[in-house]
């Protein structure tokens, strides 16, 4: 059975990550709603990358996972980047 301090650590840890995710989302929303600002979608995508990093590191504890697991997680992104690179190379050179 977890002690009170451990229970508090579990709950506060999750709340901390949630608050950071919320603030990032709010900043993305505010930037999108202010008229005339440049590069709205790229800015929103940067925020998504930060949010994904928070979920991967904080909630999914990828940083503490073994090298095998971290490599597996990376594989999907690597192959996806190849898919994007080759498809865009084809599209832009037609």
């Amino acid at each position, binding site marked *: 059975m977890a002690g009170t301090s451990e229970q508090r650590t*579990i709950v506060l840890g999750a709340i901390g990550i949630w608050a950071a995710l919320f603030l990032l989302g709010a900043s993305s929303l505010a930037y999108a709603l202010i008229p005339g600002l440049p590069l709205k979608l790229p800015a929103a995508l940067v925020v998504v990358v930060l949010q994904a990093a928070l979920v991967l590191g904080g*909630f999914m504890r990828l940083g503490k996972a073994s090298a095998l697991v971290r490599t597996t*997680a990376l594989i999907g992104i690597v192959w996806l980047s190849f898919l994007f690179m080759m498809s865009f190379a084809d599209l832009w050179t037609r």
Partner: protein
Amino acid sequence: MSSTPILVEPFEEPERQREAMVFGLWLFLATEILFFGGFFFLYAVARMQDPVGFAKGAARANLLLGTVNTVLLMTSSATLTVAERAAQAGWMRGARGAILATLALGTAFLAVKGFEYREDLSEHLFPTSPAFPFSGLVGATRFWSFYWFVTIVHAIHLTIGLGCVARLLRLDLPRRWMVAEVTTLYWHFVDIIWLLLWPLLYLVGP
């Protein structure tokens, strides 16, 4: 600390079993990244070919409901994290409460999505409708095709996730917390996909 985990063949040590379960789940998630990646490529090409029409179509997406759903899903990720860590620490009351909260939040997400779909349908915001307000506008048509396809696929993933989370309530969690861990990984992945869909669907219109 939690009780001794239940081991299944061929594992003799809890750590080896845990490593295999987490590895297997990440392997599955890697295929899911490629699965959703195809949709995101489609989005990029469609937007690139008619950015003005695309933005006009996106302007009709319901930002309020999309944002409410983002908050609901982010919160559900936090509650499921509490559930998983509580189960691992042997705090079963906390784990069960957090699982129930996650189920409520996930169900609320689907309910809000249902309201949004009803509104979209009443406004004929689907490309096959004769009254589709953007007929002839290629970018807007592609936006709404993407919207329906990807949100339905995401909702199916979430529904499967809800089933997996509900199953945790029936398990002997003190000894099966590894199942909670992999279920949580899947749920977070579905959350990340929505965090990406939110700006792509709702923030490109304003």
